[in-house]
């Protein structure tokens, strides 16, 4: 390897910071954008504006409020730093509400998913005469949640309710109880009503997805000797993966948003045993005049939502890669 003299250093390029900065400024000026970019901006602007006004700004305001003590009316808000968050740690009702929210999201999502998929599978192979069941299964979806809550409140009524009467009629009167009055079971009683109300849309999505399942693959699996469970597990479910993702996402959102059913049926009682983070937030912010504490609760709910969403998306991505 020959050693050659290094070429003389090139004269330093003239520094043009001003020009660089100018070009960056130009890039941000809408007047310099291409016509296509401007068109995109016009179409995106309303959505961005709405998102800013109705999501981001309230979110930032909630975080700010959570650092204050405020009754929601008085013009003076007292800055208390993280005191509201510190109070959450010792708050027994908050712990109950977190536990119930996780039950609602975990058990509620799993139950709705399983039931709607099961019903869709039942309706899938049924003949024309069974089309009425598709309508029946979907009907709860069109009812307002408040109506569902009131009707299920009647069903659970300890004296006149259908549930206790049916139990009595079939000789299970020992199981009769005040379903919404016992702390250990009230949250599950309300969750059952919520699951009933939420399976309609999932059922329709799964029904549509099942129509796209390859009949050839199912026939091939049958020929290979796969039983019904194996065909479901290894042929049908993989072809429903996108529908499962969609339904799970929708159910997670639905269950995190749960509020009205509990508020209508028990208002968080008895003994605060059915409080969700959302109902406890409302109670603090609007009934008990503790807006700062309510805001701290809503921030916690947002954080839990974010964590669950990230975990779900990661799991979904990993499953897709496999």
């Amino acid at each position: 390897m020959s050693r050659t003299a290094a070429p003389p250093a090139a004269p330093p390029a003239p520094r043009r910071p001003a020009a660089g900065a100018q070009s960056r400024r130009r890039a941000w000026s809408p007047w310099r954008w291409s016509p296509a970019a401007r068109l995109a901006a016009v179409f995106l602007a309303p959505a961005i504006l709405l998102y800013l006004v109705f999501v981001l700004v309230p979110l930032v305001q909630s975080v700010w409020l959570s650092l204050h003590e405020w009754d929601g009316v008085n013009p003076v808000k007292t800055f208390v730093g993280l005191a509201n968050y510190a109070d959450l740690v010792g708050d027994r009702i908050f712990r109950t509400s977190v536990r119930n929210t996780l039950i609602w999201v975990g058990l509620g999502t799993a139950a709705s998913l399983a039931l709607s998929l099961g019903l869709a599978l039942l309706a899938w192979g049924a003949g024309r005469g069974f089309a009425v069941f598709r309508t029946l299964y979907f009907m709860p979806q069109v009812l307002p949640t408040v109506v569902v809550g009131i009707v299920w409140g009647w069903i659970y009524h300890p004296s006149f309710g259908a549930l206790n009467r049916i139990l009595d009629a079939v000789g299970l009167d020992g199981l009769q109880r005040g379903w919404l009055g016992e702390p250990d079971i009230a949250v599950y009683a309300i969750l059952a009503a919520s699951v009933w109300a939420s399976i309609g849309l999932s059922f329709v999505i799964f029904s549509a997805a099942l129509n796209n399942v390859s009949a050839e693959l199912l026939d091939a699996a049958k020929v290979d000797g796969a039983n019904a469970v194996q065909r479901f597990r290894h042929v049908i479910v993989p072809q429903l993966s996108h529908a499962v993702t969609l339904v799970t996402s929708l159910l997670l959102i639905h269950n995190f948003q749960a509020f009205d059913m509990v508020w209508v049926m028990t208002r968080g009682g008895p003994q605060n045993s059915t409080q969700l983070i959302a109902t406890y937030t409302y109670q603090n912010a609007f009934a008990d005049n503790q807006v700062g504490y309510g805001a701290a609760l809503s921030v916690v709910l947002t954080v839990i939502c974010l964590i669950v969403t990230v975990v779900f998306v990661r799991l979904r991505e990993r499953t897709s890669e496999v």
Partner: protein
Amino acid sequence: MTSTHLSRRSFLGATVAGGLGLALSGCGFGRQEQAAEGESTLSVWDSFTTEPVNTSFNAINDAFSAANDGVTVDRNIVQYDQLTALAKTAMASGDGPDLVYYSVGKGNAGILVDAGLLAPLDDIAEEAGWTSSIAPFALREATFDGVLYGLPNESEVSGWWYNKSLLDQHGLAVPESADDLLALTETAKGLGIVPVAYGQGDFYTSFWLFSQVACNIMQSDALGRLVYENEGAWNSPEMVAAIQTVFVDWHQAGVFGENVNALKAQDATDLWTGEQAFLLVNGSWATGTHAEALPDRELGMMPLPSLDGEHRVYSAGSGGAFWLSANAQEPEVARDFLEYVFSDDALTIWVEQAQLVPPVQFDSSDYDTNELQQRIATAASGDGDPEQNLGYQVNHGLAAAPFLNMMTEGFQAIIAGDKTPQQQADDLQAAWEEGL
């Protein structure tokens, strides 16, 4: 493939049009329409959602408009729960009504007073003679730091409704003492009828029963000093014993039937109006509803049977009051309206149509009322001795959110067997102090 381009001019136009649209859409938000010259619109928000009070209040508004040329009442009816949240938010933002019908107490109207959102009514009270004509307990409920801010429209007493016809049918008498009640309970159980319909599924029903217990055991004067001046304590030995008797012993004896925590106020009322219960824990506000549901039965209301042999006292209070906004658009019209609320014309509507008992002295026999209304009116106006016969609602006065929540949660826990009366009394005292 064709591409669409947006010229600079079009981009600018779209931006300006969008901005203009947004700006214009915001122009009318939250603003009241300007009344024409010589005309005014009084904005009133209330929660009179049930009949016959709803229709009766419309009649009062119409009569007021008819008596005042150019005045229109713009009424907004909102459910009680929603009104509590909605009105304070709206008033704090300056978009509230001229007059709002809002709950009394430190945790309700007291919040609005603290924020300077309500206007004092002392001068109009003097002028209109309210200080002498309105019952002292009602004025006390609407007074904060010695200043009158509200005008209560109703004297509400809570007690035990009884169906005398149903009791007679089974050869039973209205229970006047604790022993009578326990004897009735034994007979009622054999008949499959609930002795006293009571449900704690709603957050507020324990307020009624505990108020009755407190009136019974403390008597009117001492309870008034505790509720309004914080003189006394909720965890006295007498109070613990009274809670033990009513919420533990009576419950376990079957006085309130089963599933007390699962029944809501309406469920308990349904049991009673369906004649599946002899008595009902409720109040005078339901007179019209009960009379309509059981038109051919002899009904009545009584205070809680005496727990210690002392005088039996009704717990009394004002469900709500009219409050004048400090930012009212029509303050003078609002004051005229408040004066009209207890005029002779309006009193007739309150008594005869709404079937309520206004907190003013009146002779119910002068009005077109039935026997039941007259009996309830007599009880609710103190039966000649309001200071002795009318106590207080424990959820009014200085009661704040922690105390109210502890009543709801704690009495549910006692019924479920998860808490002792002593624990509940101590927790009530702690919650009371927290809310002060």
